[in-house]
């Protein structure tokens, strides 16, 4: 038995059939949840990252929802079927719908009382009751000495000083737009909170948040393996021994070998577009990695765009230096004229005979990887910045390579801060997607107005790009 099903206090032909089908379907959903992910993705990524909205991306949570939804779903069927039975009255004597909290822990009871608006404090509850008792014009209230009253106050009125009330404080916290519009330390405080909490959700989430926090704090510099491991430190890593830098190396290898030239079909039968570089996750930048200190190696630009979920929100595109021992192949069958719609007149990217839209990275075709191991990866490099925040430039002599050290003169506003009057709201709203609201946090940290190259100065609570250089 996978589920802890609640009792169903309804009966009838339709309800019974529905409940039986519900339980069977729920079992199937739960048992196949991970298998569906395998069907959808050729690599070890989760289904949840691909098609489902956020609350349904965890198998454990799906189980809770399915358990909780059964009674009300069955009730609706009962109402439609017209079967007799309880549910539409408040039968105090034998209500099958009562929620008995008497077996819950003291702290849980107190939280429920507090959620109801009660103070949850013995002394205060006693004083309040006594005052109301004294003023009761009808004399209906029993005295405080009544065992029932006394018991209720004693049972529930035990406040624990260290009680964690964040559950309900959270309800009171509202989105404060005014604060967001002013660059201040709100985002930094949020970064501290978030990174600490994110660690229990897994290494990638810890890493994602840790990197963002580091940006917001304006630390700058170069993140190397040891710090990277600390940023990605999570409870799951503690029990699995591998550090974030090594795990990232493995995930990167998985992305690099996930060649997908053509559209693929997900388990829902939908045709999905392939990866960024003409259908591949990698783009060969150079066949000689000597400039990176790896003679004989290759330099790849890796896109995690097609890796829905997983690394997608960590780096975006980044640079990988290999030892050159990965096996590559050349695909010369790439269409010379793009048919994907990306190169279209309405996008200002029309293909012509004079300007064909082929995207080969070698003389004879598009390079892709057919086999490689984790150990082929010798460096991973990136500059961590935001187009709706500050960006790090490498476009002038002496700027160095991505992942190298830099100075403040190389920092300027991202392209979404277009003018000296661009507001964080404008910059973040230019970025589409459901995460746009939170992107304002990064944009607000930047502040109003574009900062040109050479004008960036360190300030408290001001975001700052940094470089990442992982070596193996």
């Amino acid at each position, binding site marked *: 038995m996978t589920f802890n099903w609640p009792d169903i206090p309804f009966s009838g032909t*339709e309800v019974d059939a*529905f409940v039986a*089908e*519900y339980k069977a*379907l729920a079992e*199937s959903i739960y048992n*196949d949840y991970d298998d569906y992910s395998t069907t959808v993705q050729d690599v070890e990524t989760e289904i949840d*990252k691909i*098609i*489902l*909205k*956020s*609350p*349904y991306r*965890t198998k454990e*949570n799906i189980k809770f*929802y*399915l358990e*909780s*939804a059964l009674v*009300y779903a069955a*009730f*609706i*069927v*009962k109402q*439609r079927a017209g079967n007799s039975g309880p*549910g539409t009255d*408040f*039968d105090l004597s034998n*209500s099958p*719908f*009562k*929620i008995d*909290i008497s077996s819950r822990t003291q702290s*849980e009871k107190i939280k*429920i009382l507090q*959620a*109801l608006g009660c103070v949850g404090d013995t002394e205060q509850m006693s004083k309040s009751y006594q005052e109301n008792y004294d003023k009761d014009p009808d004399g209906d209230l029993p005295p405080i000495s009544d*065992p*029932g009253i006394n018991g*209720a106050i004693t049972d529930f009125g035990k406040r624990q000083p260290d009680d964690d009330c964040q*559950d309900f404080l959270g*309800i009171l*916290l509202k*989105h404060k737009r005014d604060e967001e519009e002013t660059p201040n330390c709100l985002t930094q405080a*949020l970064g501290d*909170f978030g990174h600490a*909490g*994110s660690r*229990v959700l897994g290494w990638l*989430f810890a890493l994602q*948040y840790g990197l*963002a926090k580091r940006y917001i704090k304006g630390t700058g510099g170069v993140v190397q393996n040891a710090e990277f491991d600390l940023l990605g430190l999570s*409870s799951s890593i503690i029990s699995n021994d591998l550090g974030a830098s090594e795990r990232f190396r493995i995930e990167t290898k998985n992305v690099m070998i996930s060649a997908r030239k053509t559209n693929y079909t997900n388990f829902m039968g*939908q045709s999905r577009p392939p990866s960024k570089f003409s259908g591949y996750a990698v783009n060969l930048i150079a066949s000689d990695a000597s400039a990176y200190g790896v003679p004989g190696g290759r330099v790849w630009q890796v896109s995690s765009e097609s890796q829905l979920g997983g690394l997608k*929100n960590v780096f975006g595109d980044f640079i990988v230096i290999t030892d050159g021992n990965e096996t590559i192949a050349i695909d010369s069958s790439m269409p010379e004229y793009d048919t994907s719609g990306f190169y279209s007149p309405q996008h200002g990217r029309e293909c012509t005979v004079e300007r064909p839209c082929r995207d080969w990275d070698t003389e004879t075709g598009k390079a892709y990887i057919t086999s490689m191991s984790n150990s082929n990866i010798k460096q991973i490099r990136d500059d961590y910045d935001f187009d709706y925040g500050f960006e790090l430039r490498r476009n002038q002599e002496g700027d160095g390579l991505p992942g190298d050290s830099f100075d403040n003169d190389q920092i300027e506003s991202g392209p979404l801060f277009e003018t000296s009057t661009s507001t964080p709201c404008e910059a973040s709203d230019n970025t589409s*997607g*459901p995460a746009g*609201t939170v992107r304002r*946090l990064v944009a607000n940290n930047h502040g109003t107005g574009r900062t040109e190259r050479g004008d960036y100065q360190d300030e408290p609570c001001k975001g700052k790009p940094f470089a990442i250089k992982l070596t193996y």
Partner: protein
Amino acid sequence: MRTSYKLALDNIKIALGSSEFSSETNQDTLVAIGSSLAVFDINNFDDRMSVDTLSSRGVRTGFGFQSEYEYVLDFFDQFPKLNHEDVETFPVGFGSTTPYVGYKTVQTAVENVTKAMLLAILDGDSKRTANVGIGSTVGKKEIFYNCLALPEFRLSSIKPWSNWNESVGVCTPTSISRSNNVAIVTTTPAHGMSSSYDDWGIIMNLNTGVATSFNISTTLYPNGVPIKIIDANTFSYTNYGINTSITSIVGIASIQVGWGGTSNNLHRQII
């Protein structure tokens, strides 16, 4: 697990003093302190017309944004496990700062899953029927996931997106008024909606002037908003705006069918 999660999963809303509660049950919410605590509550869908809820509709990812954490969690496309005890060992000192979502976000998730299961299991378009459909388990799972999928991954060829928002008819409003954010519509001829059902809804589409303020956005409410039938020619629906009355209007109201109204009120007692 957080107490607020447990309450949300139990379909407990704790809406003390709710005017909706009192109007639908003809009594106030009650709290009795004797040997124990008793609270009366009702459960019904937050959105009684649609496949999902307003706070999780369209491109919204399912967060209700009740806490600052939810913005961050949404940004990083993560939803915490409801049962924190499942998350292996807590690093020392991090227990009190675990990212959390508000209880309304959890309630929304439960509501959406409830609807998804009803849609997957029940026959036809799943409206007004109590009969189990004859489809395969694989097919039902696809419907289940289709209900909970992001818009870009939805299949429009199967339930619920293939037929849930279909209109069942139209009626012709001839006058309309608004008082205290309740719109009252008079139609000629009769609107044709049977009072035997309380699952009716409308998508108002009026053409001119102030009357357009009564219109219903299908982006926000793809299957319309619920109505209450007053008589054969009159119905009302919630509509925010200034008090006004218009005696001559041009347009139509599309008639929709949703989940049901007060007949789906599940009465709860918490002791």
